[in-house]
């Protein structure tokens, strides 16, 4: 009997502590205050006046081998060149989401890093946070301009003609296809599909089944990725949000159920139902695996995946790239750039530290360094002059697939549609877009209902965000 009660007590204690831990996990934040004080950019003199070495902490999300190594190599060179005055310390903060979560906690405890890399869709949040100094102010203080910046890239990060953050790693969506499969199916790889109808026609020729009725190759397969929906929308020249994509006034509505988007999802669902497209879910790596394994012949991905695709398909089939397709042939828009940019922290940081961060940001943006970044990672160079460097020219001559991205960006006219939607709730927009696509593709909801419900839900998310900033 004694043994009984002791066991019982210890099992209950185990039960309670286990659940308590799980409950406690949800609540870990600190107190602190935020003051939206406006900080102006210090000039170059503050560094001369500073004593000793000024340390810049840089939170980034460039992990995974090639990216992290390339950033470390550039940073080491910067530290060598500025020995005795500036030292940049790289802190890898895992994914963009994780970095932003950590940044929020740091705001509460006044421990923000000097510099942080934030994904494109976090831009409005960063502006609203009031924690940063626009890079425009540093440039104005120095009397320099951003003429070298590729205009479409600068366009994304500019609001009211002010460049808030410095674009760093920039990507664009492309269509990738398996050249060998095209040739086998009697398709012309020099004339790849350009519209939904084209892709379907090609997919009908590309899809193969074995004797047992299992599909061995699907014509098409792309991840359920909200970014792609934004791209199709911009490709049709349409804004994704009201307020001219949030560029003229704060967006309050996500225009996610327009005819173009409905047409796209109906096409996509039909492709899956007819066995012409493979649904690999929301995980982008699954769609990439399917393409490199030869299970899908056409896919959509960012320019940043080209290196992996070339390596993955090496010796088995040839990979080529084409412009991101359009929903219909009349669509006159173009793709939106994606990726991340660099934000310099203001409040709570010494002028010398702010200035040192700016020096580092400038260093990363030079033509030579962007050429090095481009050729070692596949991210698009933000500096136009980088494309004219010998390094970049030779590399593109060897890897002509990278030219597609250059041509595509040059061919894209900068409009509010191709600037992309600027909204604080943008990460949520992408998540709910993915849920809507998933619901439509799996048949849980009709395309119209899925998109209509998402628009309804996003109206709430957008106003909740606006409420949270007290705007």
């Amino acid at each position, binding site marked *: 009997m004694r043994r009984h009660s002791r066991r019982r007590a210890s099992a209950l204690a185990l*039960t309670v502590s286990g659940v308590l831990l799980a409950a406690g996990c949800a609540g870990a934040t600190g107190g602190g205050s*935020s003051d939206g004080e406006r900080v102006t950019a210090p000039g170059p003199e503050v560094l001369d006046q500073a004593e000793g070495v000024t340390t810049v902490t840089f939170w980034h999300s460039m992990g995974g081998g090639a990216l992290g190594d390339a950033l470390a190599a550039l940073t080491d060179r910067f530290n060598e060149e500025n020995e005795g005055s500036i030292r940049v310390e790289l802190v890898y903060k895992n994914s963009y*989401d994780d970095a932003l979560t950590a940044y929020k906690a740091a705001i509460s405890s006044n421990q923000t890093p000097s510099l942080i890399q934030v994904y494109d869709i976090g831009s409005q949040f960063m502006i609203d*946070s009031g924690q940063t100094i626009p890079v425009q102010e540093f440039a104005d203080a120095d009397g320099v301009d951003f003429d070298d910046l590729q205009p479409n890239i600068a366009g994304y990060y500019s609001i009211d003609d002010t460049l808030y953050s410095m674009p760093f790693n920039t990507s664009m969506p492309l269509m990738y296809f398996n050249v060998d499969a095209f040739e086998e199916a009697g398709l012309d790889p020099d004339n790849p599909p350009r519209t939904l109808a084209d892709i379907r026609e090609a997919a009908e020729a590309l899809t193969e089944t074995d004797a047992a009725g299992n599909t061995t190759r699907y014509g098409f397969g792309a991840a359920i990725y909200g970014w792609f929906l934004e791209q199709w929308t911009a490709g049709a020249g349409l804004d994704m949000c009201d307020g001219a994509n949030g560029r003229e006034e704060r967006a309050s509505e996500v225009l996610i159920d327009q005819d173009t988007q409905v047409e796209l999802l109906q096409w996509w669902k039909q492709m899956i139902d007819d066995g012409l497209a*493979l649904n690999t879910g929301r995980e982008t790596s699954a769609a990439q695996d399917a393409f490199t*394994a030869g299970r899908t012949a056409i896919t959509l991905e960012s320019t940043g995946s080209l290196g992996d695709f070339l390596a993955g398909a090496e010796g088995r089939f040839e990979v080529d790239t084409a412009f991101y397709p359009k929903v219909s042939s009349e669509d006159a828009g173009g793709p939106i750039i994606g990726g991340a940019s660099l934000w310099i922290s203001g409040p709570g940081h010494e002028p010398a530290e702010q200035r040192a961060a700016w020096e580092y940001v400038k260093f990363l943006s030079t033509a030579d360094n962007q050429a090095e970044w481009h050729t070692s990672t596949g991210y698009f160079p933000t500096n136009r002059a980088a494309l004219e460097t010998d390094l970049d020219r030779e590399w593109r001559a060897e890897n002509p697939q990278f030219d597609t991205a250059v041509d595509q960006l040059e061919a894209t006219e900068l409009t509010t549609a191709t600037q992309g939607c600027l909204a604080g709730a943008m990460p949520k927009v992408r998540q709910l877009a993915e849920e809507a696509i998933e619901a439509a593709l*799996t048949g849980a909801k009709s395309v119209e209902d899925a998109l209509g419900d998402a628009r309804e839900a996003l109206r709430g998310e957008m106003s909740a965000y606006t409420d949270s900033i007290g705007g």
Partner: protein
Amino acid sequence: MPNVPLPSDPRRRARRRRDITLALAFLAPSLLVFAVFVFFPLGQAVFLATRGSDLFGRPTVSVGFGNFAKLLTPEFGGVLLLTLGYVVLVVVPSIVLPLALAVPMAQRLPGMRLFRTAFALPFAYSVAAASVVFSLLYNPGTSVLNWVLESLGGQGRAWLTDPSLALVSVALVTVWMNTGFNLLVLSAALAGRDEEVLEAAVLDGARGPSMLFRITIPLITPSLFFLVVVTTLNALQSFGQIFILTRGGPNGATGVLVYSIYDTAFANNASDFGLASAQGLVLLLVGLALAAIQFGIIERRVHYQ
């Protein structure tokens, strides 16, 4: 206990006080750990659950039970039902499968040790490592499992992208992970059976199924009960396998409670710590309720020797 101490006895009172002091001194380290890692976070969760969240996830004004009121939706009810369904999908096979393996392995045959080690190995895996391995098995485009099925003339399945299958696929990973530990516990329990009882049962004519269900299982009920409670709580807190394999999808088919907490607090720049804490407290209540039910109903049938 013939010598009941009288409260007026000063020597005994002094000793009693010394005992209490000593007990407290020994308990202090664990109480401190509990305070820091359990009681404080719990208090914090209760506090946050009654607060709104600002742009940076900092607690703002009191909203009373507002966060809990927000949970009174069919969607959240669906999350709770899904979580319970997942727990059942995990717990039942996590007990039955190791039992089915442990009983034959309790025979003293040569080479059994090798099997026991092999079957217990999943115990040594981390959730992340196991999930990555299973993501290769389940991969929608390049599934190893489908390759095997198709080579055998069967049909491949969309393990993670079919909404009706995804929860089962994730539960399977959890069952696989649980099997190792549960097998160890059950093997130890079987080895600890009283030889005399077994011999007596054999003499009385117990064989096969009647031996298993009338003798063996009643003898190991303490271990079985322990596993039911622990496995239930583990299942309730599953996160890693869902985060890595399905991210709650497709169509929310694997969006169990802990994933929902993560989604509210950390994903997509959300930072609604108030609502997430409220969900965390619901998780606490669900865990306590399940444990209470188990202690109230199942433990009555547990046979302690």
